[in-house]
């Protein structure tokens, strides 16, 4: 760090703010899936850029951590690069693009393909933490519904999808039930990633800055995607291999490549794709 940067307290936030966030995190961990209110601060970036995740990361970081930040699976997009640079400056921590090397992974909308370990903490950026919000706009009512574990409205919403379309059409932010109790929004990860939440060895923390909520999944917690006996949950992805590394089992982004409607499907997890190609994997000829 340069002398100017040293004028920041470690990890940017003042100590009183960090204590407040840390107390909320511990309550969130003790009540898996429950949205714990916290006094979200203004950060030097706009809402929607991951201010909730940034505050969680700031509260959890120690100088020994190695931080990875991904945006839609990619390490090299504006949001990810900016947040990584921010913490390199204000906390002096090491950063990485490798999932294996990271101790804290802040993410927007993906869980890495590489399996997580017990030594890692996932920090999710969350826009709308309340899974019932689009069904019931009043906070007083959704709070009561969580208190009573009254999730009939959500089951009806999913049922209406099945009745109209023959399947639940939610592609992302697919609601889950945590440890048999709270229904939780897993943040806008694709439903493909939902199974990775179940009994994960890593601690998972969720932060919504604008909505001022923190929630958590302790390691090994049972996380079920809501479904019906005759319409079980299915993780879905584009039905083709990655056009770069040939992976059949990773989540793909659709990329427009020219003005003539040409498109290709490539791994959304850039670290996973690069590692596979470095190890000699390639797409089979079309």
């Amino acid at each position, binding site marked *: 760090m340069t002398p100017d940067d040293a004028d920041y307290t470690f990890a940017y936030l003042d100590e009183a703010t960090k204590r407040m966030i840390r107390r909320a995190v511990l309550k969130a961990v003790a009540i*898996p899936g429950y949205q714990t209110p916290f006094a979200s601060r203004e950060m030097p970036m706009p809402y929607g850029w991951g201010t909730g995740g940034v505050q969680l990361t700031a509260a959890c970081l120690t100088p020994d951590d190695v931080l990875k930040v991904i945006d839609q699976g990619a390490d090299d997009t504006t949001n990810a690069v900016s947040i990584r640079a921010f913490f390199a400056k204000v906390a002096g921590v090491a950063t990485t693009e490798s999932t294996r090397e990271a101790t804290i992974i802040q993410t927007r909308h993906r869980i890495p393909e590489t399996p997580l370990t017990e030594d890692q903490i996932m920090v999710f950026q969350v826009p709308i933490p309340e899974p019932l919000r689009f069904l019931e706009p009043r906070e007083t009512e959704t709070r009561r519904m969580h208190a009573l574990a009254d999730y009939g409205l959500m089951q009806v919403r999913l049922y209406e999808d099945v009745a109209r379309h023959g399947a639940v059409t939610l592609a992302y932010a697919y609601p889950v039930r945590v440890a048999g109790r709270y229904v939780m929004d897993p943040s806008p990860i694709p439903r493909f990633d939902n199974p990775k939440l179940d009994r994960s060895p890593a601690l998972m923390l969720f932060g919504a800055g604008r909505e001022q909520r923190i929630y958590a999944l302790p390691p090994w917690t049972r996380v079920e995607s809501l479904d019906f006996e005759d319409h079980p949950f299915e993780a879905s992805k584009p039905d083709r291999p990655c056009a770069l590394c040939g992976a059949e089992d990773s989540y793909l982004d659709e990329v427009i490549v020219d003005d003539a409607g040409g498109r290709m499907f490539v791994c959304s997890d850039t670290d996973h794709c690069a590692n596979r190609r470095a190890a000699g994997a390639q797409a089979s000829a079309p």
Partner: protein
Amino acid sequence: MTHGLTGGFAAPAVEAAATFRAVLQAMARPGRIERVRGAAPPPPCSPAAGAVLLTLVDADTPLHLAGRHDGEALRAWARFHTGAPLVGPGEAAFALGEWAALGPLDAYRQGTPEHPDRSATLIVETARLAPAGARLTGPGVRDVAALSLPEIAAFARNAARFPLGLDFILTAGDRLAALPRSARVEAG
């Protein structure tokens, strides 16, 4: 030493960060024992409990000191280093003491159905802390974990009230473990 001015963190931001990570890992993985350092509170407060106070307690969180911990030296130390109002169990966000002195647990705030997070956290000073004794299952535990607890029944009753209930940080010397309300507790 009753002025209580010494014994705080030398580098508050970094030492509080390390202590919080230890408490977070302990709370997220019931049965796990972590080591913390940096605090030197007056007796009978353990260094681990002192570090937890410095990391989590401040003027926004009323603190209850129970039994032997409610002595002049520790009161002065806690006041100077945390600024927390010292209160009775009914108003406390945090409480510190030995198990026998902390009870009965019903005296503490348990949270409400709409706000289960508005409950107290108890810091329980124990003579020894070992991964043996009570059987723990639930979130944070892969199959089954074990932890030495001062008793079983009170913790089992607390877990039965989930999502309401108290959360516990157990301390011994420079080591700590935690027991969130989500952990199911049975005799080992």
